[in-house]
């Protein structure tokens, strides 16, 4: 074994690089493959308008996926994000309708997302109930509250004073959609925090080995709670973006959204077992899902096929991923 190997070579071997980044590399390859395929099949695919449109539509998912990457890195899951989006989306519209100025409504909604996350995180980390159960309950309860508040109606956002919020969801700056810009900022911040800060390191440590983390004095329970606050706030932001884009708030927003978000994160190589997560992978995973949906529509397949193909591709990509990853690390250890 390398116990007796000479001290650190300055450059790391290709093999090490491949193993360590196998997950991100394979999703990158997959993403490029999808792009090439659709650009051959449809002349419209690579047009800037189309690509920017994909990005604009993906913005809520990308934002929420940042929070989800943190949660899954700790080894947990948050099934309630779609319902938080619906609740915050509805509350935003109701607050504006009640005459609250838009900055207050925005703050209120973000705070609501944070509190919901805090409550769920408390049950997960301090009461030791599996996150799957807590957030499954959240999924049901929160959408129920949204339905109760709106009585199932869609609430229009037509107050002139709320115009800046609509711009947030619809506007463009220098030929670039504002929601996409916002998503990029959140993604960059998320990537920095996860990779470069002490907090990000603790998130990874709790997911990798909670017992070891606890023994060296990392406040595991607080870290575990905080990641659910992150999904809460990012979901609330997604709810705002959707409210802005559609100009209304509805309890039916973002149904099945949690599955897309989880799929994007997992496709990006973040392990459901915890301990490994990258925002770059998540971005690529989300974009792959977005591109497949967009591409299949551009090549005029039945819209019903999109779901089938997306599901199949997730399975295929992750299967390949585990095979490649498994083989590489087995080769290393053997």
């Amino acid at each position, binding site marked *: 074994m390398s*116990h007796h190997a000479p001290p650190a070579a300055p450059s790391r071997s290709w093999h090490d690089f491949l193993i360590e980044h196998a997950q991100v590399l394979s999703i990158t390859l997959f993403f490029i493959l999808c792009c090439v395929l659709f650009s051959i099949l449809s002349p419209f695919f690579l047009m800037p308008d189309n690509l920017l449109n994909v990005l604009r539509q993906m913005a809520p998912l990308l934002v929420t996926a940042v929070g989800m990457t943190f949660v899954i890195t700790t080894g947990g899951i948050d099934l309630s994000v779609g319902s938080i989006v619906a609740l915050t989306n509805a509350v935003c519209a109701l607050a504006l309708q009640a005459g609250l100025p838009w900055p207050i409504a925005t703050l209120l909604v973000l705070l609501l997302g944070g509190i919901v996350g805090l409550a769920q995180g408390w049950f997960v980390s301090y009461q030791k109930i599996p996150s799957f159960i807590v957030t499954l309950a959240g999924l049901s309860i929160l959408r129920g509250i949204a339905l109760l508040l709106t009585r199932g109606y869609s609430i229009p956002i037509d107050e002139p004073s709320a115009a800046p919020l609509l711009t947030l969801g619809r506007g463009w700056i220098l030929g670039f959609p504002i929601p996409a810009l916002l998503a990029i900022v959140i993604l960059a911040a998320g990537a920095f925090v996860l990779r470069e800060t*002490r907090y990000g390191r603790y998130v*990874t*440590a709790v997911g*990798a080995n909670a017992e*070891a983390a606890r023994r060296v004095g990392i406040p595991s329970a607080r870290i575990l709670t905080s990641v659910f606050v992150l999904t809460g706030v990012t979901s609330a932001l997604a709810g705002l973006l959707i409210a802005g884009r559609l100009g209304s708030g509805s309890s039916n927003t973002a149904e099945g959204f949690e599955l897309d978000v989880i799929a994007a994160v997992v496709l990006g190589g973040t392990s459901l077992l915890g301990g490994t997560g990258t925002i770059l992978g998540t971005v690529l995973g989300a974009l792959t899902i977005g591109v497949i949906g967009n591409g299949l529509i551009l090549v005029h397949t039945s819209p019903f096929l999109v779901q089938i193909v997306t599901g199949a591709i997730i399975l295929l990509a992750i299967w390949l991923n585990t095979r490649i990853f498994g083989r590489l*690390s087995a080769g290393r250890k053997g």
Partner: protein
Amino acid sequence: MSRSAEPLMSLSGIRKVFGSNTVLKGVDLDLYGGECLGLVGDNAAGKSTLSKVMSGAYIPDGGEIRLGGEVVHIAGPSEARRHRIEMVYQDLSLCDTIDVAGNLFLGRELSRSGVLNKAEMLRKGREMLDALDIRIPDMRAKVAMLSGGQRQSIAIARAASFAPRVLLLDEPTSALAVAEVEAVLALINRVKAQGVAVVLVTHRLQDLFRVCDRIAFMYEGNKVAERRMEDTNLDEIVRLIVGGNRDEATALDQAGARS
């Protein structure tokens, strides 16, 4: 190895009860700096419980712990650490998906206003390993990629970096390949040479002869014997572990099965 004149840590009459089961029945034990004590005994003899009492994981129901002559009450692992008592648990102390440097500094990361100072951790981590002559080619390799021996070495180096007075090692060499066992034992000797009181809990009797100066034998919650390494041999060790009330042939058979 020259050991300290006075014991660094001194246990007297340590008792521990779980329900109706008395696991430790009044154990006396002295630990000296620069000395390695082997703590052996069959399963359920109380050696794990005793090491957990020393590391603060269990609070004893009776008896006294003295550190450097003063009576202390160790109420938990963090308090044990404050008293400079470190424990390396069997393969439980590392985060697989974090790199070598990150693991060495786990829980006490070097950072500037929350942002990790990775370069400094790489440099100081390398120094920590060099000080104990541990060779890990790549400080940025994820710990999952390393061999069992390298992982154990990193766990020990991390514990040693807290400048402990007492270092407790729980089965550090079980599940390691032969060459790796050698490396870990050599490492234990280097830690010992720094004046640390090392306690080695192990089932591997051959390791005792390589690093220990003294052996304490646990049997059914009592310390039944203590031997200096030079005054004993494998036969006697096996006899004392199995309780001395069986014939030698059975004892030797069991030793064969164990190692």
